[in-house]
């Protein structure tokens, strides 16, 4: 079987699995799997860019995804009345002061010669800057958070169209990635992993605790949507009529319509990004990246600036994760910092890339769709399996109850097994790099 035929068959298989969900369970859950699968595919393209093209080990995907979500709040919600005059500008001033402190510290570290004088002035600048920052920041934060804390208490957004938040999420993630890359790239691969793991936790901590930014764990709900609301569709006689002509009741038809609307939007973004990634892979730039990945020393000897190229691709890949994060928050209609977990948002994406085939964009997309399907469906399958296994046990047995309760945790187990099996028996993934 030739290469393209095999790959097409793999994609058809995943499509078939989703269709099967539609026939066996409900079309609603099938489209839900499709939507999150598309978003996961975009995240996987981002990670594949970093790992597959350049060999960068980024385990901070969760942080960039969350930053994308933050962008949705900052771009699309309405500004809280009075928040900017009460403390918004003060907060911006404080943040600028903080940035100035860090810049000054970096300048000192670079310009002054090594020695005690440098250490002392470095510490002095940092300590002084920190206290000035806190002195300006704290009262302004308190002022903003005091405004109607039950419903707002944050500075709100710019009330721009929500679709603008997607590129903005990418920019925000790119900015963060640039900062991280500037400090952590050029270190060994394990160190980059630990550094990104840490930065992701910090981003989540900031989102959870800085209530003035996006209400922290109080969550922002009811974000604007790029697609119509179900209730409006149900009240639209034209829509009800066309739904009836398809043999659907208006409620089901409207939910499907909305979800499919999202699917189309996501598919467009995915195709654009996939096309761009594919072009990048084929271009001289992509070949250079792979050359750097395969032999850094040789690439450097050929005059390639390895650190700069790494920074470039790290920023690009993180930006793609940010875009996906913004899309996900738009789909959810809410930003809930408490739900970001590294196993789900970092390591699962890694499983997708490895299983699909690192270094191959189509592989990443396929892996994402397949693994997302498994992630969703393992739970009902596990429950069914447990019921079969425990069928022989007496009713009311504690072990039986425990086994059936624990079926939900089969997911992590399955993902680990899938990852290890692929790494062992097909380390290049389902669609290997060409």
């Amino acid at each position, binding site marked *: 079987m030739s290469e393209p035929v095999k790959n097409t068959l793999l994609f058809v298989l995943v499509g078939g699995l989703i269709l099967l969900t539609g026939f066996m369970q409900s079309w609603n859950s099938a489209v839900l799997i499709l939507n999150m699968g598309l978003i996961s595919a975009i995240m996987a393209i981002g990670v594949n860019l970093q790992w597959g093209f350049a060999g960068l080990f980024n385990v901070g995907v969760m942080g960039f995804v969350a930053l994308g979500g933050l962008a949705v709040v900052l771009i699309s919600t309405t500004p809280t009345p009075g928040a900017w005059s009460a403390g918004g500008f003060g907060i911006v001033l404080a943040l600028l002061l903080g940035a100035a402190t860090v810049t000054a510290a970096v300048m000192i570290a670079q310009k002054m010669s090594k020695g005690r004088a440098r250490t002392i002035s470095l510490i002095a600048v940092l300590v002084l800057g920190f206290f000035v920052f806190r002195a300006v920041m704290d009262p302004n934060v308190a002022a903003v958070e005091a405004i109607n804390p039950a419903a707002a208490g944050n500075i709100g957004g710019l009330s721009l169209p929500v679709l603008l938040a997607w590129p903005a999420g990418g920019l925000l993630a790119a900015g963060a990635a640039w900062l991280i890359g500037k400090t952590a790239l050029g270190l060994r*691969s394990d160190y980059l992993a630990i550094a990104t793991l840490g930065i992701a936790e910090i981003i989540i901590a900031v989102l959870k605790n800085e209530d003035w930014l996006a209400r922290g764990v109080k969550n922002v709900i009811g974000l604007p949507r790029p697609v119509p609301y179900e209730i409006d569709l149900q009240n639209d006689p034209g829509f009800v009529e066309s739904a009836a002509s398809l043999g659907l009741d208006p409620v089901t038809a409207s939910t499907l319509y909305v979800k499919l609307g999202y699917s189309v939007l996501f598919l467009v973004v995915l195709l654009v990004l996939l096309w761009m990634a594919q072009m990048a892979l084929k271009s001289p730039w992509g070949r250079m990246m792979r050359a750097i990945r395969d032999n850094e020393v040789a690439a450097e000897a050929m005059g390639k600036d390895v650190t700069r190229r790494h920074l470039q691709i790290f920023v690009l890949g993180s930006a793609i994760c940010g875009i996906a994060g913004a899309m996900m928050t738009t789909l959810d209609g809410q930003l809930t910092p408490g739900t970001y977990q590294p196993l789900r948002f970092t390591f699962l994406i890694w499983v997708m890339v490895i299983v699909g085939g690192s270094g191959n964009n189509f592989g990443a997309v396929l892996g994402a769709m397949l693994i997302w399907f498994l992630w969703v469906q393992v739970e009902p399958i596990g429950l069914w399996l447990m019921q079969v296994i425990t069928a022989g046990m007496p009713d009311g047995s504690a072990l039986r109850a425990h086994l059936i309760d624990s079926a939900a945790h089969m997911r992590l187990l399955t993902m680990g097994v899938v990852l290890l099996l692929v790494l062992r028996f097909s380390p290049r993934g389902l669609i290997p790099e060409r």
Partner: protein
Amino acid sequence: MDFLNAFVALSNFVLVPAIAYGSQLALGALGVTLIYGILRFSNFAHGDTMAFGAMIAVLATWWLQSIGVGLGPLPTALLALPIAILGCMLLVLITDRLVYRFYREQKAKPVILVIVSMGVMFITNGLVRFVIGPDDQNFADGERFLISARDFKEMTGLEEGLAIKTTQGITVVVAVIAVALLFWFLNKTRTGKSMRAYSDNEDLALLSGINPERVVMYTWLIVAALATTAGVLYGLDKSFKPFVYFQLLLPIFASAIVGGLGNPLGAIAGGFIIAFSEVTITYAWKKVLTYLAPETLEPSGLVQLLSTDYKFAVSFVILLIVLLFKPTGLFKGKAV
């Protein structure tokens, strides 16, 4: 008097908790650093190995409690610890045989092993959640305090109380014993010496007839014992929750790297550095300063540098500083 009060308040809220936390981190970091030194990869599954060991300890404690065996004032978990260590050793030996050995024979790149350890992490995490569930489990029993705040006040007549939890005392004692045993093993026994030789220079060690599989096996056994001890102590001191162990991964790695990856002494120092910085930076200093400063200068706010929610940020920033200025860590670690 004010000075004494300030010192007692400082001990109560900063020194004692930081020493206990530092011991737990040090034990965890020792495991990471040993794996790095001998098997040459960063083991992402370490946090979940700790959780697995602690889980067996929790189950064994419940079993011991149900048959009425206990240690009186000491927590029953200490009796359960050897059982848990054996269980955890079994787990790591099985994972090594089924998973890691294949890649060792292939001489796979370290980063591949890191990804493999991610898979192991998923499986161990899933196993723990499968057996004991994702919720909080309390398994500490026995006396709660060595010294309670009230007793201390009565004893000394000071305004401030000093409370030392039994679990904090046990943490330090057990950690000291574990570290002493480890260093005795590494420095005095034949196997320990061959482990150090293997870590220093693999080829030379192989030439002098050291059996690598044996070294690797002993490493895993020691790592399992250390991880279980760290996990049980942390669970006793705080509480057992599978997800928390995953989050400990960051401070543990920070400790190991700050000290110098591959260097056991560095791991211990790193653990205490991280613990003390986390606690001092997130502690509200108002109480201590009120005693020390003259009345006119009394602080109005809490004098807390960072909220406790940012404790990860502290270990992270220290990690970054060390990586930028001294990439091999404070003690000389491996620079690959």
